[in-house]
């Protein structure tokens, strides 16, 4: 993929969706330049490290959701007794404590919800760990959707359809190519360049309460100078 200073590889794969039951993982490399065997070896090595690191970190997801639920039931029972007590004994203490109860007493419930929602990801990660494998020989420049995306972004750059800066490339990936992987790639580039900004309150609340997908790393940068 083109970058401001040259080009870089990234792996466009959602590790959470990869299932070893479907067979071994095949790495396919798409590049407008000739890729040397050493570069392919580095990409493959980093892909394997990231893939199985993700699997190791996600293997526990959802495995113990029933035990999480048991803990949540126990905690909600204590919360119920506490609320009944505070209603039965209205006082200044009840007012002080009452508003803060959700911050302390919904943690086990949240963990149980997350564990239940993520049990499929955990099962896939365990299958990857147990029987997943990456085919030794990567496919170089095979046909497919990614080939068209890579071709179009380089062609658009050559034809001057968009500028060679991270924001323009991100917008082109989003609006012209409709390629979510590339958008995530350029967004990660932009985030690396800019200081981190505080998340909006709504986003933080959603992050706190809603079960989310396990985070898979965006693999592998091997930069090249601008041709």
């Amino acid at each position, binding site marked *: 993929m083109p970058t401001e200073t040259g080009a870089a590889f990234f792996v466009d794969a959602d590790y959470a969706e990869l299932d070893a039951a479907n067979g071994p993982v095949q790495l396919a490399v798409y590049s407008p330049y000739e890729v*040397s*065997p050493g570069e392919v*070896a580095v990409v493959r090595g*980093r892909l394997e490290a990231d893939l199985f*690191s993700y699997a190791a970190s996600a293997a526990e997801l959802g495995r113990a959701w029933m035990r999480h639920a048991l803990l949540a039931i126990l905690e909600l029972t204590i919360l119920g007794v*506490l609320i009944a007590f505070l209603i039965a004994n209205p006082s200044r203490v009840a007012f002080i404590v009452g508003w803060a109860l959700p911050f302390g007493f919904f943690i086990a419930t949240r963990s149980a919800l997350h564990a239940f929602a993520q049990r499929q990801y955990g099962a896939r990660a365990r299958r990857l760990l147990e029987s*997943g*494998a990456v085919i030794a020989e990567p496919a170089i420049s095979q046909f497919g959707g990614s080939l068209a995306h890579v*071709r179009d972004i380089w062609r658009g750059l*050559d034809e001057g359809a968009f500028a060679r800066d991270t924001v323009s490339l991100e917008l082109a990936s989003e609006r012209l190519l409709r390629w979510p992987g590339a958008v995530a790639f350029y967004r990660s580039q932009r985030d690396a360049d800019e200081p981190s900004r505080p998340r909006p309150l709504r986003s933080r609340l959603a992050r706190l309460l809603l079960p989310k997908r396990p985070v898979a790393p965006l693999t592998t940068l091997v930069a090249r100078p601008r041709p």
Partner: protein
Amino acid sequence: MMQLVCWAVPVRGGYVLRADQAAHAAVQSADGRRPQFVDWAVAIVHPGSSGFAAERVRRPTVLAIESAMRRGAQTRPEPTGRLARLHRSWTSLALGAALLVLSGTHWVLALAGAWLLAGRPWMAALLGIGPSDSPATAWTAADVQVTAAPHAGLGQVGEALEHAPDDAGGYGQALAAAQTLGLDEAAEVYSALIKHPNPMALPVEVGMWTPAASVEDRALGGALPDVAEAPDPPGEGADAVADTEPGDEASDDPMNRLP
């Protein structure tokens, strides 16, 4: 078979071997895998010059990987993990402490406070749903397959080094080339060499020096042919190590016509 990568960074008179930044993560992730899937192959990426003899650097390569494993194990961020867990649960801990303080003679409030402070962590540990310690690594140096693969970027860095008249200038140019190409491992080696230009005295965390084949042969008395000057005829290489060359791919590759 899982692949690790070791960089053979070209320096004056030889190479500095350094494990790739992903090597430690790869070995750590193999802990939960079945033994039949944990075979190791190490790809040595090198500048592609004919003076590189992969078989000679097999043992130093394994040592460089093992050194990276030990470094990774020593720098495991345990305190950060505890701090992160404390950060995640500070609201419950604060609420639990407040409930205990405010409870007075009300046992319900005291029970709720005790649950938040100690009851829930204890119950989670009892049910086995807390964070678990990672087991020992699955890395073993036995039966490691070593292959060599020329790396175009390292080749450019090597050329920048060769064309410089002196060591300091050469390492400076090589550092600039490595940074431009995004080769972090090579850039770290050259940064260290600019401060102390003797590659043999490099700290082990930076890399392990190994002489080029021609230099080693000369040191042994010059009886053996210089590998750099007299490469083996095709098909008669002395190395048992597989070496792939660039440009082997099919010429009718669709990507060759891009962009």
